[in-house]
């Protein structure tokens, strides 16, 4: 018996959604609950021992569109260079997710 068209469409839709969700996921050592719309900042560097509170910071970002194409330099090196830092004391990250259509991950390093 032939499969009804709507079932094929539903299956295709579910598979596409699952693939998109699986492709575009942030992984971090410390992650607050993440929603389909998310804007938050959280710690990235969790190794603190008498860490000085820094006065300067630098940022670098990576982007992802539709869970299909991802690009950008969000490395600690790029963030430190952007902030003209000589020493890195700690690091956080910013995460922005708009319905999985656009995601931006920003690494923020603090230092002197």
């Amino acid at each position, binding site marked *: 018996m032939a499969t009804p068209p709507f079932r094929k469409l539903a299956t295709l839709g579910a598979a596409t959604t699952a*693939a*998109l969700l699986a*492709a*575009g*996921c*942030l*992984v*971090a*050592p410390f992650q607050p609950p993440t929603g389909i719309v998310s804007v938050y900042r959280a710690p*990235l*560097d969790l*190794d*603190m*021992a*008498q*860490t*000085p509170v820094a006065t300067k910071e630098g940022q670098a970002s*990576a982007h*992802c*569109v539709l*869970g*299909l*194409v*991802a*690009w*950008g*330099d*969000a*490395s*600690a*090196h*790029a963030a*430190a*260079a952007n902030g003209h*830092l*000589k*020493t*890195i*004391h*700690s*690091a956080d*990250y910013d995460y922005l*997710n708009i319905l999985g259509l656009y*995601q931006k*991950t920003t*690494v923020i*390093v603090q*230092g*002197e």
Partner: protein
Amino acid sequence: MARPWQPRRLTPLLGGLLLAGLSGCATYRAPFQPPQGLLVSAVKAPLQLDSHAGVPAAPGGHGQASTFYFHDPLITGLSFAWDDCALARASRNGGLQRLDYADYEYLMVLGIFGRMTVHAYGPVAAAAPR
């Protein structure tokens, strides 16, 4: 009426599992991963950053080492991964005296070609006197 169970039905499932096993795993693991793209990913992110005492942001030296991934989806369905992106190799390539921190760079195109590069940063070892 329910059709009788036939072992033949398991063939596609077993075939798929076998193929999945042989094709390796194109995804990667890292402590911090920005979202990846299904078609193309070209991102750079921190690999290791233990900066409690403060690490030099521009230590002067940089070394890198890469591994490569190739998946043949048309003929064999097999995947291959090779080379060395260890920190030891990266720091040796850059002639580093000490490792201060490391980033990584992930490139994957259509799940067919991939490259993972580890970037190591630290002061460069002084050249040995001749």
